């Protein structure tokens, strides 16, 4: 019994497995934000003029904007002048040409994270683009993808090698001045991922990006742009971690997806940024704008997210359904423990005829966390026959956490069919005791109930990531009951 309770004590002290930091040579811009900083970032990346102008325009717009305050989250005012907007691992030359040239310490970091850059990646059939602080370190499988005509590279490479595509689509889904954090991102983003799938191509493997914030007092502002041409198909995954630090760090990313006629994009996220300690000290502010545009007929965009980390999550992956018969989906599991705050959900904007959307949101709150679902279903006047189904479930562990639901529905077309279902439940002591009395440990009992609660969403994740997501949830909720 004594060893047992020690175990439980250890479990209650939630460990953040990815809390290490890597000591490598970094090139960091001093903290502060002004036009010179933006010019410096653009110059470092040898960007063409259209990029610099776009950034500056975004910055000037940002200066006129106010930080949003409508979300159900609380945090001290962010000092944007105290953040460094660029940090890159220093290499002897400019960028590494191959894996051999990548700092071994960096590779070690990825090793610790369990990211398969080398052989494991090959076995798993996953192509990885790893973003370390501000720059994309290496992209694996570039060649194999190139055979299929798929472009998968860092955003910087895309600006250099495919400026015409970048210029055409950058900001077409999330305009530079879309919102406060998106504007900030547009001004200072330093890297990210770029995917282009040509007409009729089914991307031969899952594409994957791993984001890592390492340096202190830096923000990470990456930008992802995915374009799926007519009849193409791509599945993209992203994972995120950060070291354990007492200061809060800002992560303001933007993701834009474009699906043309009959194209399909599946975008999955397993987010595990450092959530802060039990008292809410430290952790990442995850203020992210993700939006997909179903531009073409019969196109489909599907978001799946497992949000387990971050001190604050502010994120609404959305679909704008422009093409007739296009489909938008949002599957989400958002877990908050200790002092975490989550305000997340989606927007489904129905523009085209017979457009359909599905929203399945599972919110889990434990400790003193607050978890809000915020979702908008909008049907414009011309969207004949639009349909939406929303299911929004909350699960509470303990009695000091909160679950909130803010559904917004705007239907301007009388043919619209919109369904919304919501439930709130609690893991009861009686449920835990019942399972324990059948020989199942407390942690397993909680996991069993939580996995049962989330299974519709896990079912949407690629197999190996579903397993990872389950494990992540188990870690996130350790000690949450009892």
């Amino acid at each position: 019994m004594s060893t047992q309770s020690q175990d439980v004590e250890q479990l209650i002290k939630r460990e953040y497995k990815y809390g290490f930091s890597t000591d490598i040579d970094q090139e960091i811009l001093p903290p502060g934000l002004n036009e010179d900083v933006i010019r410096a970032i653009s110059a470092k990346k040898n960007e063409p003029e259209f990029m610099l102008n776009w950034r500056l325009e975004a910055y000037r717009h940002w200066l006129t904007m106010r930080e949003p305050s409508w979300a159900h989250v609380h945090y001290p005012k962010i000092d944007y002048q105290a953040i460094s907007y660029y940090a890159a691992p220093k290499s002897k030359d400019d960028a590494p040409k191959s894996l051999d040239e990548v700092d071994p310490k960096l590779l070690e970091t990825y090793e610790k994270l369990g990211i398969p850059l080398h052989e494991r990646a090959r076995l798993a059939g996953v192509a990885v683009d790893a973003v370390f602080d501000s720059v994309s370190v290496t992209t694996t499988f570039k060649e194999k993808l190139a055979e299929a005509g798929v472009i998968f590279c860092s955003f910087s490479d895309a600006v250099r090698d495919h400026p015409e595509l970048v210029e055409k689509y950058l900001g077409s889904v999330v305009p530079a001045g879309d919102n406060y954090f998106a504007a900030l991102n547009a001004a200072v983003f330093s890297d990210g991922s770029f995917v282009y799938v040509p007409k009729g191509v089914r991307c031969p493997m899952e594409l994957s990006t791993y984001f890592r914030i390492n340096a202190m007092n830096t923000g990470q502002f990456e930008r992802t742009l995915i374009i799926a041409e007519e009849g193409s198909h791509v599945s993209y995954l992203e994972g995120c971690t950060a070291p354990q630090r007492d200061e809060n760090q800002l992560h303001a990313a933007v993701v834009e997806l474009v699906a043309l006629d009959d194209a399909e994009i599946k975008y999955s996220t397993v987010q595990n940024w450092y959530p802060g300690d039990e008292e809410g000290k430290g952790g990442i502010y995850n203020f992210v704008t993700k939006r997909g545009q179903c531009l073409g007929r019969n196109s489909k965009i599907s978001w799946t997210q497992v949000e387990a980390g971050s001190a604050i999550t502010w994120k609404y992956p959305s679909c704008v359904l422009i093409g007739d018969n296009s489909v938008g989906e949002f599957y989400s599991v958002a877990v908050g423990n200790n002092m975490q705050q989550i305000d997340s959900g989606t927007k489904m904007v129905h523009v085209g005829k017979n457009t359909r959307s599905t929203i399945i949101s599972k919110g889990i709150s434990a400790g003193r966390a607050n978890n809000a679902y915020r979702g908008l279903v909008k049907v414009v006047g011309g969207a004949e026959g639009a349909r939406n189904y929303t299911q929004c479930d909350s699960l509470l562990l303990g009695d000091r956490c909160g679950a909130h639901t803010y559904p917004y529905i705007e239907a301007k077309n009388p043919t619209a069919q919109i369904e919304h279902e919501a439930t709130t439940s609690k893991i009861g002591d009686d449920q835990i005791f019942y399972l324990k009395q059948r020989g199942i440990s407390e942690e397993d009992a909680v996991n069993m109930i939580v996995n049962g609660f989330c299974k519709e969403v896990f079912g949407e994740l690629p197999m190996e990531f579903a397993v990872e997501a389950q494990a992540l949830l188990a870690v996130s909720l350790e000690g949450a009951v009892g």
Partner: protein
Amino acid sequence: MLKINDLHARVENGTPILKGIDLEVKPGEVHAIMGPNGSGKSTLCQVLGGRDGYEVTSGSVEYLGEDLFELEPEERARAGMLLGFQYPVEIPGVKNIYLLKEAYNAQRKHRGEPEADTFQFLKLVREKLQMMQMDESFLHRAVNAGFSGGEKKRNEILQMLVLEPKLALLDETDSGLDIDALKIVSEGVNKLRSADRAIVLVTHYQRLLSHIEPDFVHVLSDGRIIKSGDKTLAHELERSGYQGIIGEAA
């Protein structure tokens, strides 16, 4: 197998409920504990099962030679003790078959045996389902979620048949059952009877005991066993009621 010595217990910081229980259960025996509402029957089951919120103030319980209170509830279960719940708990999202398998394997792991493979396990479960006259669709429903009272009780016995406990404590397994269901449940319990297992039935009514014949009957009143005897004691209870026995003991 189970030795209860002068057990005193209460709801945490509440008034005493069990006030000195003595009971010994040996392998092969079936004991019935009967008593009026509020006599401490359910508390006894909860305390033996290891539920939080109860406080043992004095006395001891030995299970298979070990101090029962040194074991966590899940350890008690893995060591072959099963508590059949008076009110089986609903667990939405978790399939019956999944719970059965996890519970079954938890025991096997505890005994150092390999986990059962799915095919063999399913065969075993199907057999037990048939005994309980339950449809296979039960396996794919969430644990007790939306089950009728009778279905829940049958599900408890199904779990018992799959887990084959050494000691089954059945807390009012007969309550809320119609006559047909009572018969099925009783048959399930009777199937478990063997020389190396013991069963403790906790019940209000004599009617269960006409289906499951106990070796011993104990009358619990105000936290104590006031009378023990063989199955004829149950008939006596039926005739004179609890008041008769309690009056006689006082």
